């Protein structure tokens, strides 16, 4: 591959900071969970499938998403909990599609379920949503080497914004890094390699290291 040109349009690293809102909706069993999953806003679905990634950014393996955790640990429905935990979030480009998949898995399970288990008092599922405040980090990169330096310094809120919010919350369908590397620097292979990382099975630090490894390898390749 030819050496990539320096960018005309720098990559501005943003970060998201989240405030949690309560919705007044709660579920005591799977039927109520399904009922609310049909009607809650996309921000609610996004919150319960993503906020744990930032809350538990240091853990590997990470606990599953909120729905799966509640189904397994509170309702003790291990089989369904496993199925909901295993939903591959990378396959969805819209929250609507993710919602439909969640509903399909739970409703299929309910068809064969004779009796609903009820959460103990005080352990109901409380639907919440995030308000994401997007802020500049003050860092920007015009080329690959600078991108690598910034990547080393940005916080997890920035990684989360460009990987998770951009792809699914803002429904851009891809992470911001790959988009910029491809469209502005012409680094198509590197962009593809980064978009193939499954960010949901890495800690935030692990994710940073993986992106840096790929960028570093590309820089070394260009130098040789």
């Amino acid at each position, binding site marked *: 591959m030819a050496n990539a040109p320096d960018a005309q349009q720098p990559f501005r690293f943003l970060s998201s900071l989240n405030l949690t809102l309560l919705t007044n909706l709660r579920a005591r069993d799977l039927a109520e969970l399904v009922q609310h999953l049909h009607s809650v806003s996309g921000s609610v679905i996004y919150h319960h499938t993503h906020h744990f990634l930032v809350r538990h950014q*240091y853990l590997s393996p990470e606990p599953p998403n909120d729905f799966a955790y509640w189904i397994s640990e509170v309702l003790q429905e291990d089989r369904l909990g496993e199925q909901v935990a295993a939903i591959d979030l990378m396959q969805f480009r819209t929250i609507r599609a993710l919602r439909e998949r969640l509903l399909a898995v739970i409703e299929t399970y309910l068809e064969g379920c004779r009796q609903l288990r009820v959460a103990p008092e005080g352990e109901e599922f409380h639907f919440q949503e995030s308000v994401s405040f997007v802020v500049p980090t003050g860092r920007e990169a015009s080329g690959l080497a600078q991108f690598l330096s910034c990547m080393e310094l940005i916080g997890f809120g920035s990684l989360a914004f460009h990987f998770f919010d951009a792809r699914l919350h803002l429904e851009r369908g891809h992470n911001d890094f790959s988009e910029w590397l491809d469209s502005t620097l012409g680094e198509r292979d590197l962009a593809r390699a980064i978009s193939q990382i499954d960010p949901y099975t890495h800690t935030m630090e692990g994710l940073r290291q993986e992106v840096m490894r790929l960028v570093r390898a590309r820089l070394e390749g260009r130098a040789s």
Partner: protein
Amino acid sequence: MSLRDYEEFVGSGTIYELQLLGERLAGKRIVNVNSTAVGGGVAEILNRLVPLVGELGVDMRWEVIKGGEEFFGLTKRMHNALQGGSEVFTPHDWLVYEETTRRNLEELDLDAHVVFVHDPQPAGLVTSRREGSRWVWRCHIDLSAPQQDAWRPLSEYVSRYDAAVFSAPQFSRGLEIPQVMIAPSIDPLSDKNRELAPAEIDHLLEGLAIPRDKPIVTQVSRFDRLKDPVGVIAAFRLARAYNDCRLVLAGGGAADDPEGAEVVRAVREAAGDDPDIHVLELPPTANLEINALQRASTVILQKSLKEGFGLTVSEALWKAKPVIAGAVGGIPLQITHRYSGILTHTVEGTAFWLRQLLNAPDYARHLGENGREHVRTNFLLTRHLRDYLLLFLFLDHPEERIVYLDG
């Protein structure tokens, strides 16, 4: 304390984010209102947060309402009833509340962009809110099952606010106004949480007459039936059949609290003359002693049957200790079962996990380390400060779910 003092715990990125949010709030005037300047958790947190917000360039003040004995007697009963207790209220009570509110409105300076009112005592001040200002009610108590005689009149005031803030989802009510969840926090620089040198821990344990000859299992909480101290002793005895260890039950003294004194008696009776069980009644100032006890412990318990937020769990996790706690109140927000601690529901379950953790020190250490990181991310003062700043910004964007603060 300065914001820079927190950098070693949360990193420079977090401090930078706070500064950035502070810049977005520059020029805003915010006033807190509560009912006491000293004592109690609200005053403690405001004493720490208000100067830090000021350091960020945001004009934040703090006003305290005044009231007579009758008013504070009433608000204490309201407090009990709102948390599920049984109290009787008369029409005269609400006249006292309204009259005290009216007198405070004459004296307090509430000229601000945001009026941040803490707990039920000053909630009525909203009746004279000025156009253009935003009012937020911060509820620090558990409203999950309030007595309606107390909640109904209070809810009429709360419905006139722009937003309400609760510490945990289950503490909230079905309000029509936006409800925000902001968990409380611990201060890593306070005496209760700061690092202690090994010699300091030894010295403090010696002062408490706690030998260090075997693993120590500790529960720190006031002597209250809902903290189940007798259940803790039962769980300890089941576990000790296989693991030689020592139990410390440490809590506030019960001299002025007849109910607490009764619980202490029951605990001492359950402990009998067992030399491995230590019941410590500590003064409210014993923060360093509690810190040392937690740091000297092998496992920490919080076997509550009902709980508010239960911040003692975060205090223990911050010391990287494995914690076994009841799955009640705000505890499940602090512990993800089998990842950052253990959640139990029974004496037998607590004993089972106590044995597991005493016999599997690597797993126990792993839980403790995860717990510390969980607290670092979610329950330190800086996160609390960040959430308050975001809340103030949210008041200008109540309908938006993605807000760009880009210059």
